């Protein structure tokens, strides 16, 4: 589906190729009796990208565009339907859960909701030590304790706070606990799924700064999933824009933000509220179509202000154009 594959490259921590993810709609006995057709949600449709070592790569898009599903499939919380996921030189797309175990300590995840992602009945110290002990990244309990206190210090907690439970912390603090837990197995790659979107603005800046400091300190690569474009512009080096499960444009941060080509990227950037400019032009009309019946042509055709005849017939592929990749018939 995608024309230009980056060659497999030791500089890349992650290479994703033609990743496909689908979900079956519930199909009950009544549906079978009434002869209803089976329905499939096409969540991710042939997505390819790579992330270099010590790089931040972001996937952006609106709800339902498949960015979180892509992330969850990469860390193998979901089985990929097809496509390959090469992590640190290993193709992990078909790994069994047991084989995934040794990979997983190298790839950790930070979740959106700091209230739902910490066990309310575990103390902070146990939340942070559990992954180390499970993955045996430490020799024993004593080393785990020392490491836990070190991590808590790094993310800005006092040692005595280790004895507390998650409910005793604010949202921003919990997110920092989630970050310490992600770091506990000494990973090289972190998937952060909307890590700051549940936080207040002033706290958001604190957590973003922490994540960027840690990136340098621990030589981390990030896959950053977000819908807030100003946050993405701040943290990321490269990004991909997703729509209806397709990557529609991909490239370096400044190229995309300064000269977006794909009509969806343009609309997305124009719609984002900012402090520094007036909103211009008409907002994009309509809603995202259903991922159950994908349009045969371009996924964006129903809302595109510049659609042509070919767009509803033929699906555009990602092609290199003006220093980035874009999937749009305007530029083919």
């Amino acid at each position, binding site marked *: 589906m995608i024309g230009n594959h980056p060659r497999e490259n030791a500089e890349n921590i992650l290479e994703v190729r033609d990743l496909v993810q689908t979900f079956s709609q519930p199909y009950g006995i009544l549906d079978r009796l009434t002869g209803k057709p089976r329905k499939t949600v096409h969540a991710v449709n042939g997505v390819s990208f790579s992330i270099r070592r010590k790089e931040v790569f972001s996937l952006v898009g609106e709800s339902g565009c498949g960015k979180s599903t892509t992330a969850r499939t990469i860390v193998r919380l979901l089985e990929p339907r097809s496509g390959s996921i090469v992590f640190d030189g290993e193709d992990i797309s078909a790994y069994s859960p047991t084989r995934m175990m040794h990979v997983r300590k190298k790839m950790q995840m930070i979740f959106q909701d700091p209230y739902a992602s910490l066990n309310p009945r575990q103390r902070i110290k146990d939340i942070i030590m559990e992954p180390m002990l499970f993955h045996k990244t430490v020799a024993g309990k004593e080393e785990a304790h020392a490491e836990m206190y070190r991590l808590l210090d790094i993310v800005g907690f006092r040692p005595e706070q280790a004895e507390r439970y998650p409910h005793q912390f604010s949202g921003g603090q919990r997110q920092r606990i989630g970050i310490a837990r992600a770091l506990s197995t000494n990973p090289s790659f972190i998937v952060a799924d909307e890590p700051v979107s549940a936080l207040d*603005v*002033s706290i958001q*800046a604190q957590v973003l700064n922490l994540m960027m400091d840690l990136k340098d300190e621990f030589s981390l690569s990030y896959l950053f999933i977000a819908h807030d474009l100003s946050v993405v512009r701040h943290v990321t080096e490269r990004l991909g824009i997703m729509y209806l499960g397709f990557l529609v444009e991909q490239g370096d941060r400044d190229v995309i933000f300064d000269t977006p080509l794909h009509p969806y990227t343009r609309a997305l950037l124009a719609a984002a509220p900012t402090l520094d400019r007036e909103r211009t032009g008409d*907002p994009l009309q309509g809603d995202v179509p259903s991922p159950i019946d994908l349009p045969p042509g371009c996924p964006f055709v129903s809302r595109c202000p510049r659609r042509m005849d070919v767009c509803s017939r033929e699906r555009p592929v990602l092609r290199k154009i003006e220093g980035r990749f874009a999937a749009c018939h305007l530029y083919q």
Partner: protein
Amino acid sequence: MAELLLEVRNLRTYFELFRGTVKAVDGVSFTLEAGEILGIVGESGGGKSVTGFSLLGLIDPPGRIADGEVIFRGEDLLKKSAEEMRRIRGKEISMIFQDPMTSLNPLQTIGRQLDEMLALHTSLSASQRRNRAVELLTEVGIPNPADRLENYPHQFSGGMRQRVVIAIALAANPGLIIADEPTTALDVTVQAQILTLMENLVKKFGSSLILITHDLAVVSEMTHRVAVMYCGRIVEEGPTKELIRAPYHPYTMGLLESIPRMAGTRLPRLPQIPGMVPSLFDLPRGCSFEPRCPRATARCREEIPEMRRMTGNRRTACHNPQTAGKEAADYDR
């Protein structure tokens, strides 16, 4: 000067809880002219939503409005009976909430919900009401409005649902609409649609709008004037453009700086406000922002700053306000 629609004086809404009294709104005063869009902005716990609810008398125990006046079209709403307030809500003042799914009744068609509003607050006949309902759905940009009247809320997308909520809010042509985070649950492209729609409709219907949000960027694009709240008080208020260009209060300044920019130079680190919002059970004795404030002095620890008039139509409650324009210009914008 345009006609004064609303004047809030020294509003205090307290919640009496087991742990103590939470002063969620503590001496808030502001005015709103006819046709004006006012933004109330701040982070969670700032008291912006409680302010909105207080205007409509929607405070339930253990909360109570401890003091203040809400003068709407010359009458104090806080002195009205529950029955009188029921007639005012929806007809004179209506409210739009963040989550359209919880403000619509899932068991009734939207036609019926629009009709209920029109039956309560207008003297139209049944067939006139139906026509009006179709008109309203057309106004808010819902395709095939006559057919969609028969649909239930779950048959609409999030953005379309919020359009329905706006149609209901506009049904009785109220003088004032209070919108509490109306687009926070929506995607950016849909948010842009809804904001543009609200802006146009407010203009067309001649209503005033109070937009309550955490998003300074939305405020900057939508509102004429903005009030910044922190720990139950307004810390700064003024015309939106001026306030965002050169804020007086260090909290406003900090909020503005901590938002990454969409264009221009990228800062390697985001300027951040240190620490976090203090517990409302245990507020500092002086200025609530003092523990996090880079400009704090001994006086700030002791004495709560009073709101005072600055240049033009601007006010701030700060002992050491920024010199307008100076520091602000140092940051990339």
